[in-house]
């Protein structure tokens, strides 16, 4: 990506096309007080004013003023207001892709209630139209277009990995089972890097007697088009999952440990595609809680007490956006009733891990990604946590990389893994380490 290959006019046209009454009201409401900066983990950890959320939406605001405000039009025509240039696109690309996880915590503190996250997503949309997406991220998008997965997990690789997990973890994993109730869609991060997560979720669902299946057609839940900000690619990847669901006739799609994918499928999809009638989109966190409440699985109380102080990381898209705040806590209070403790801030006010929104896929974002994770590490230390649990595999990748980067010995665990390990009468995948 360089300024010479960008198309500022395409960005401007996209900003203008995207700007309807809602965006206009949000931009008009902003007083530029800058309080949003205090909520941004990238700004907090680096002090870089370019990372302030209000600055991240500046291109959108400029486009709005120049096209929709009479004074803005005149000032632009007179050359007083600066038109958007290719250099601007390059600069904002570094800000909105490399220093923003679209976690939307900034919206929580905005006194005007402006939804900065969606506005920043719109800035990404304009940059995507202009060809200003960081190369690393775009390579992953292209891979997902061509091979069905941003990590290059092809049909053959998928089949091979599932067979391997099924065999070594000795667990039944149904694939393409027509008439199953639930389609389970993993991310390729889980397929490649957290195979035990697949086994653990399979074990839990089998123990509960759930009618479920994987789909070779809808086998990738991650949506790099959503990270990119491209409606076209986001739709393409959503359609693949929905096609898999339609083909098998399932009643619900369960997103496993991925946050952005949950946002894309649950809230963005209905705005982009026609959702199949009655199809429920749910997340593994909600399902785990349901299964325990309904008595379909029983967990050994205190099964995770040996893990030392246990804390939970609230993922921006699952907890803050998705509202699944109490479910993991109810589960952890069974698993670690004595040793569970909260980080501060927590729940919807928690700060992001720093790796979401595609940031972890962009090498040049590493400095601020690690800086943001430093805040999380401070919170874990303050909570005297020995183990941190989460329900998002993208967060988990960031935590694993972050704790290694900072030389921390905090253990990083997936919630499904802990639940599977606590299943009454079921062998635990994490109980056999030496």
């Amino acid at each position, binding site marked *: 990506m360089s300024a010479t290959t960008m198309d500022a006019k395409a960005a401007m046209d996209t900003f203008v096309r995207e700007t309807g009454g809602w965006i206009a009201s949000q931009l008009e409401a902003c007083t530029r007080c800058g309080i949003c900066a205090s909520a941004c983990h990238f700004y907090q950890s680096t002090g870089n004013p370019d990372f302030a959320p209000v600055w991240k939406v500046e291109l959108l605001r400029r486009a709005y003023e120049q096209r929709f405000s009479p004074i803005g039009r005149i000032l632009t025509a007179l050359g007083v207001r600066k038109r958007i240039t290719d250099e601007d696109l390059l600069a904002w690309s570094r800000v909105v892709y490399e220093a923003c996880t679209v976690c939307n915590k900034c919206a929580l503190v905005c006194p005007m209630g402006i939804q900065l996250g969606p506005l920043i997503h719109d800035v990404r949309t304009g940059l995507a139209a202009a060809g200003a997406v960081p190369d690393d991220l775009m390579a*992953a998008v292209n891979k997902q277009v061509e091979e069905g997965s941003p990590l290059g997990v092809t049909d053959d690789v998928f089949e091979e990995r599932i067979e391997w997990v099924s065999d*070594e973890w*000795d667990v039944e994993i149904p694939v393409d089972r027509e008439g199953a109730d639930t389609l389970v869609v993993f991310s390729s991060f889980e397929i490649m890097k957290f*195979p035990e997560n697949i086994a653990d979720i399979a074990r839990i669902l089998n123990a509960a007697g759930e009618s479920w299946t994987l789909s070779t057609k809808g086998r990738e839940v991650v949506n790099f088009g959503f990270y990119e900000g491209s409606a076209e690619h986001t739709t393409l990847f959503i359609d693949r999952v929905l096609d898999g669901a339609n083909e098998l006739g399932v009643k619900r799609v369960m997103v496993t440990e991925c946050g952005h994918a949950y946002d894309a499928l649950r809230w963005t999809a209905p705005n982009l595609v026609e959702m199949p009638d009655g199809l429920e989109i749910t997340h593994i966190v909600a399902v785990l809680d349901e299964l325990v409440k309904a008595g379909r699985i029983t967990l050994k109380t205190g099964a995770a007490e040996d893990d030392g102080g246990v804390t939970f990381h609230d993922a921006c898209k699952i907890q803050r956006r998705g509202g699944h705040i109490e479910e993991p806590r109810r589960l952890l209070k069974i698993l670690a009733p004595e040793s569970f403790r909260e980080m501060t801030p927590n729940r919807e006010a928690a700060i992001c891990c720093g790796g979401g929104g595609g940031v972890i896929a962009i090498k040049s974002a590493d400095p601020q990604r690690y800086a943001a994770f430093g805040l999380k590490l401070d919170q874990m230390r303050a909570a005297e946590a020995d183990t941190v649990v989460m329900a998002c595999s993208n967060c988990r990748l960031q935590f694993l990389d972050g704790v290694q980067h900072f030389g921390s010995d905090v253990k990083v665990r997936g919630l499904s893994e802990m639940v599977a390990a606590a299943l009454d009468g079921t062998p635990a*995948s994490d109980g*056999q380490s*030496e």
Partner: protein
Amino acid sequence: MRCRHSGSFTHEEVQALATFLNDYRGRLLIDLRDAAIEECERHIKNFRPMMPTAAIFGAPIDPSVLDIPEMWYAHEVRAFETEDEALAWLREQ
């Protein structure tokens, strides 16, 4: 840490290895002497995306086992003919 394994892997050992690789934060020296090489190759291939920085020696392994897309892994894993070569590389990492 030096790793060595002889004989076949049980399912439990494979599962324990997955947990170990998730938790381990250091570098690995993998000694394949006396190992069931075909089986080890299979496990190395399957676990390659999760492996920390590692140097393998002690038996020739098929280069295609380590030749996987860069997006699948975070750490380098290389094979060497001798332990000295493996250690020398590992110390530089």
